[in-house]
């Protein structure tokens, strides 16, 4: 079906922008770099919407089932007639859904950055990196081959690295970018091994073929991969778990989450794009893409479920104690991704039992909008206050009315209050969890309440709390930008308000998308309905949590401090992020470096290098000995020649006869 061929342009346009801005941006195009990037992405976004309309409403459906369409296939590396790496474009419900999400969030971020990053010295470079990221993410989404996924996976990691370290003269940003890169690289090692295992047993790297082969219980490939086992688990479990490890690294699941909070050192729009809405959900997307295979293996799914649930709860607890607003949002991202993960983990493939899959994708979809809105709102606040710390904020609601309303909508959406977007997707997840696994349901419910609490803690701390200090902020802000005489300076130019308004409208509206009709595990429409009785519990819990947050933080008081001291050790531990960073530091610095790293370094210096140096020295010695032969005198050479002839004649005449 080549009528989807134009989808190729969606990733290629940002790539072209990257090349142009990367080569000529800083010298010639710094004035129009932002507009160029935004215009090219606008085109991509429009194409994505056209593709989505065509797929979902015109010709994607055959006999009531959404088809997987391979829009383009090109053999890139052929190792043998059976094993090759193909580059392809796959069009199916989740890839089209992700196309819409990525392009629209990216477009919003591009527009927002026009205001937020204005006057930066490396403005064009920033847009070049944004385009590179968008290209890689779109490529990742459309990949039809698991090796192609891996290539784009790494590209996404690189662009994330580049954008986190955008302020490269800030040591903390450089450290954060290295941390993000190393941690995700470590996880990608698992991903690569997983790919090799699946490819080895499946005999192909094409995702569609892999799914076909591993879901047929009688196929040779399925029998061979489940028959082979290592350390008590079948190779299928190993392969899927290792693939999931890559996904967990990118999606910052516990215990590979340590890079995400630090990644907030990057510019805030970047955090909105990469570390909230798109790249971090790549792990969820990967599991969803391979879901039919995952659903064949109970053990791997259980790992997905429990890692997801643990991350959701763990991150929510930490988020309650952090004071840097971007870090709160980072932990909330981690928590929400945990939600998506365990929703996938408890799902089955196909039919009514596929509710978890659909709920997970739905939550991914809605989360992208309200979380990028939260980040962009936080960006506006930071732009005005010039600080990330909650204590520097307060009472901003009158100064930034639009940001305030947008942020409030996003908070309500993430808290799951009807009729905002988060409510619908969270309800689906909770329903799925309730039917499949009661423990997970309990964790999910508790996490939902915590989510409301910390989001409104953030909201009240930023926009309410201290009334008196509000004017001070305005003065401070004026001190920074004295060219702007208006009182509402902090809201920024219209390019910063417009994305907030659009995303706020999305955060209200996207919950009403008939998602269960469009994106399901088997392509067939799924009948769902909101059970009013069932939704009472989570909504009431959320409202209670919001009231509690209002009580604590709406006005300045010391109630929250009292509660914090009542929790004592738990509070401190959560504030210190449960010492996970310290554990990692301990493992690396106290165990890996002295006991593995240093011996290896010693062996490298003394044994590997030593052997090479021995060779070199021996060669030098021998040449020192015999270099006299090369005397430069013609007659000496003639002498050697005749001597050689004489010796050869003696050999031939008397010895070998």
């Amino acid at each position: 079906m080549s009528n989807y061929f134009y989808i190729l342009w969606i990733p290629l346009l940002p790539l072209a922008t990257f090349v142009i801005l990367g080569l000529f941006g800083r010298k010639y195009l710094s004035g129009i770099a932002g507009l160029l990037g935004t215009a090219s992405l606008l085109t991509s976004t429009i194409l994505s919407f056209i593709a989505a309309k065509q797929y979902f409403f015109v010709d994607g459906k055959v006999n009531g089932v959404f088809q997987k369409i391979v829009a383009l296939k090109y053999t890139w590396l052929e190792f043998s007639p059976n094993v090759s790496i193909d580059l392809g474009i796959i069009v199916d419900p989740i890839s089209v859904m992700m196309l819409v999400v990525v392009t629209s969030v990216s477009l919003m971020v591009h527009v927002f950055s026009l205001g937020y990053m204005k006057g930066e010295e490396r403005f064009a470079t920033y847009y070049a990196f944004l385009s590179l990221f968008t290209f890689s993410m779109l490529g990742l989404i459309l990949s039809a081959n698991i090796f192609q996924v891996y290539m784009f996976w790494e590209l996404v990691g690189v662009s994330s690295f580049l954008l986190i370290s955008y302020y490269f003269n800030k040591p903390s940003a450089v450290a954060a970018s290295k941390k993000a890169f190393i941690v995700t690289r470590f996880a990608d090692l698992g991903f690569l091994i997983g790919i090799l295992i699946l490819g080895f047993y499946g005999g192909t790297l094409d995702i569609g073929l892999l799914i076909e082969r591993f879901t047929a219980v009688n196929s040779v490939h399925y029998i061979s991969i489940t028959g082979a086992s290592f350390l008590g688990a079948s190779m299928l479990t190993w392969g899927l778990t290792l693939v999931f490890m890559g996904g967990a690294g990118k999606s910052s699941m516990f215990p590979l989450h340590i890079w995400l909070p630090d990644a907030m050192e990057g510019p805030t729009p970047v955090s909105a794009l990469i570390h909230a809405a798109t790249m971090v959900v790549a792990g969820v997307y990967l599991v969803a893409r391979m879901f039919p295979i995952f659903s064949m293996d109970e053990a791997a799914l259980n790992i997905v479920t429990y890692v997801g649930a643990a991350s959701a709860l763990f991150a929510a607890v930490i988020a309650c104690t952090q004071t840097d607003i971007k870090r709160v949002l980072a932990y909330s991202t981690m928590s929400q991704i945990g939600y998506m993960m365990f929703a996938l983990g408890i799902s089955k493939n196909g039919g009514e039992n596929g509710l978890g899959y659909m709920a997970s994708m739905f939550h991914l979809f809605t989360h992208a909008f309200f979380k990028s809105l939260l980040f962009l709102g936080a960006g506006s606040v930071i732009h005005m206050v010039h600080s990330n710390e909650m204590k520097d904020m307060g009472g901003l609601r009158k100064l930034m009315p639009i940001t305030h309303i947008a942020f409030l909508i996003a908070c309500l959406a993430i808290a799951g209050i009807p009729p905002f977007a988060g409510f619908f997707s969270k309800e689906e997840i909770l329903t799925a969890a309730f039917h499949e696994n009661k423990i997970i349901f309990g964790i999910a419910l508790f996490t939902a309440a915590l989510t409301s609490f910390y989001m409104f803690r953030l909201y009240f701390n930023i926009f309410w709390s201290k009334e008196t200090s509000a004017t001070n902020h305005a003065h401070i802000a004026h001190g920074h930008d004295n060219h702007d005489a208006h009182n509402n300076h902090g809201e920024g130019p219209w390019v910063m308000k417009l994305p907030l308004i659009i995303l706020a409208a999305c955060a209200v509206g996207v919950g009403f998308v008939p998602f269960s009709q469009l994106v399901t595990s088997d392509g067939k429409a799924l009948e769902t309905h909101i059970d009013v009785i069932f939704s009472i519990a989570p909504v009431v819990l959320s409202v209670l949590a919001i009231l509690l947050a209002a009580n604590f933080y709406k006005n300045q008081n010391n109630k929250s401090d009292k509660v914090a001291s009542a929790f004592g050790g738990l509070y401190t531990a959560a504030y210190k992020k449960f010492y996970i960073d310290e554990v990692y530091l301990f493992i690396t610095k106290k165990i890996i470096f002295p006991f593995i790293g240093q011996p290896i370094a010693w062996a490298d210096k003394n044994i590997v290098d030593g052997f090479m140096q021995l060779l070199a020295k021996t060669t030098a010695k021998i040449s020192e000995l015999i270099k006299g032969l090369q005397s430069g005198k013609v007659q000496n050479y003639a002498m050697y020649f005749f001597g050689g002839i004489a010796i050869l004649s003696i050999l031939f005449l008397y010895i070998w006869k």
Partner: protein
Amino acid sequence: MQDIPLSQILFVSTFLFFIGMYGLFTRRNLITMLMSIELMLNSVNINFVAFNKYLFPDNLDGLFFTLFIITIAAAEAAVAIAIIINLYRSHNSIDVDDATEMKY
């Protein structure tokens, strides 16, 4: 006329060859060395002719070889002298001991 035995001719050619070799090793003048090489070539020519006449009188292969060697020796002498002239231009000498740049 009594035939000269082959061994005598071979003796002459061997003698000639070693005279040439001696000249090649002891003389430092390139022209003299070239002359010595010509002597060695001529001793080989004598060998060819002698073996042809004494062992295979019906064939002419040895004679042809000799003719070719003489031709090629002439060409080779031209080349060698060209080299020698160039050496003289660059070193102002045709003594081999002066041209010892190509060493370790």
